[in-house]
């Protein structure tokens, strides 16, 4: 709470992504002008042309690394950032584009591009933390704007952000929602997924599909077993764990357990 003499400088960087996480910052309609008053938004090309070069107190990084050039670029950004926070499933787990990690990227390119030789891409989509040290990872596909504001404010204040790593279930119950898995038999990834979204899927009568990635101590195998009892087949289980956070280790391992050759059902 000690006022800082110079306004801290914020930069927002984009790697392979849908732009949604950085848009969350512009979606903070109520806070945006306060944020702009408290910090110097020095680099945010989605929102402004101006560029202040040099070092940044806080860099928010969206997106995953999918090109050799990006792998270089993130090193430079790290070197120029005092605190580097990754935002969103792409930056923290490789994102939906990490589905290529389970396939041959050349096939992928050939299927979309007649001249795939010109496509500059790596065989994998990887989280930022695979390339440089990251100070804090904010999960979600997309991040929650409440948590985004909290993360920015907390880093400026030197506080630990209130971004618990526990399950979506806790959030679900704090809200007083009905468990869709227990009361409807709808498979739900909430028990193995990190809180933060506000349990919006159960709030809309559907199971969580894991867009915040694995919670702190996920027991994916036990949940998968339960989902199987509720009627999910092997392919469905594989796909359930292989989506927006497919490359997060706990989800990757669980999805691989349901690959054709590995299924133990």
């Amino acid at each position, binding site marked *: *709470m*000690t006022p800082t003499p110079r306004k801290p400088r914020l930069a927002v960087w984009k790697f392979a992504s849908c732009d949604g996480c950085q848009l969350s910052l512009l979606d903070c309609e109520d806070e945006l002008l306060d944020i702009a008053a408290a910090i110097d938004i020095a680099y945010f090309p989605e929102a402004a042309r101006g560029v202040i070069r040099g070092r940044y107190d806080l860099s928010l990084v969206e997106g995953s690394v999918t090109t050799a050039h990006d792998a270089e670029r993130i090193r430079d950004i790290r070197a120029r950032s005092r605190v580097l926070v990754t935002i969103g499933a792409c930056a923290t787990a490789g994102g939906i584009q990490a589905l290529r990690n389970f396939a041959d990227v050349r096939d992928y390119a050939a299927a979309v591009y007649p001249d795939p030789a010109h496509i500059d891409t790596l065989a994998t989509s990887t989280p930022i933390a695979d390339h440089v040290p990251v100070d804090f990872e904010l999960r979600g596909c997309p991040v929650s704007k409440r948590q985004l504001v909290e993360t920015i404010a907390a880093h400026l*204040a*030197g*506080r*630990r952000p209130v971004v618990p790593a526990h399950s979506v279930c806790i959030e679900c119950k704090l809200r007083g929602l009905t468990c869709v898995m227990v009361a409807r038999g709808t498979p739900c990834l909430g028990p193995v997924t990190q809180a933060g979204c506000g349990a919006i899927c159960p709030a809309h009568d559907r199971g969580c599909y894991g867009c915040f990635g694995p919670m702190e101590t996920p027991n994916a195998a036990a949940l998968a077993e339960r989902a199987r009892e509720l009627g999910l087949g092997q392919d469905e289980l594989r796909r359930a764990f292989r989506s927006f956070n497919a490359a997060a280790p706990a989800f990757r391992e669980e999805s691989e357990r349901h690959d054709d050759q590995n299924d133990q059902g």
Partner: protein
Amino acid sequence: MDQMAEPRMAHPLVPRVAHVRRRWRDGPDVWTLEIEDGAGSGFMPGQFNMLTVFGVGEVPISLSGDPADGNRIRHTVRAVGPVTRALARLRPGDPLGLRGPFGTGWPTDALDGRDVVIVAGGLGLAPLRPAILQLLARRDRIGRLTLVYGARSPDQILFARQQDRWGRRSDIEVAVTVDHATSPWRGYVGVVTTLIPRAVSDPANTVALVCGPEIMMRFAAAALTDAGLPETAIHLSMERNMKCAVGLCGHCQFGADFLCRDGPVFRLDRIARRLALREI
């Protein structure tokens, strides 16, 4: 519900505002804050306060000053995480939130006529210092007084100058050991437990006060029992996560005990079984 107490005006989780009077460094990443606490009402050695840095958070920190010193209270903090770092950055005049004192203290009142061995590891000396100061103030009432202190390395020794001063006194024996020696160090090297046998001359009449990392306390307790002290004569100060310090939040449970209320200082016979259990 008529038998229920009237709700108190003050919520026990609401801090009062106090101000830093002085601040000095007491080791690498370790700072002592002297705090002006208008509402200060004294404390027992071994007790702790909940300190809030506004906008950052609240943590339990032991009282490390002299219990005789009225409303000027001291806390010695190692900057390890967000709140302790923010505490360590506070300057004279800065406000902070304060609740306490809480917890059981060292049984300093019950030591008349006994030998006292104080075993401290690292920052564990902070909550023991008030006990030492109090015992020194009534030195004539107790028998042999020994401080056995272990630090990671010579530069990590807490309250080094004060320890030197104590070391020069004749009424307290001070033995310091380090895990890793650096060049000018000519003292002991090794774990603190190796010094314990020497500190105990009359085990049946000795009381031990122990504070340090949990693993060190386990070994110290074993060494003290080996030296012949009964479990009832060994007192340990434990550490657990704490949010409320008044027995409401549940975090600090250590078996059946709430550390904030039933501890942090426990007699070994009460916790010996738990101390041996992992992840309890």
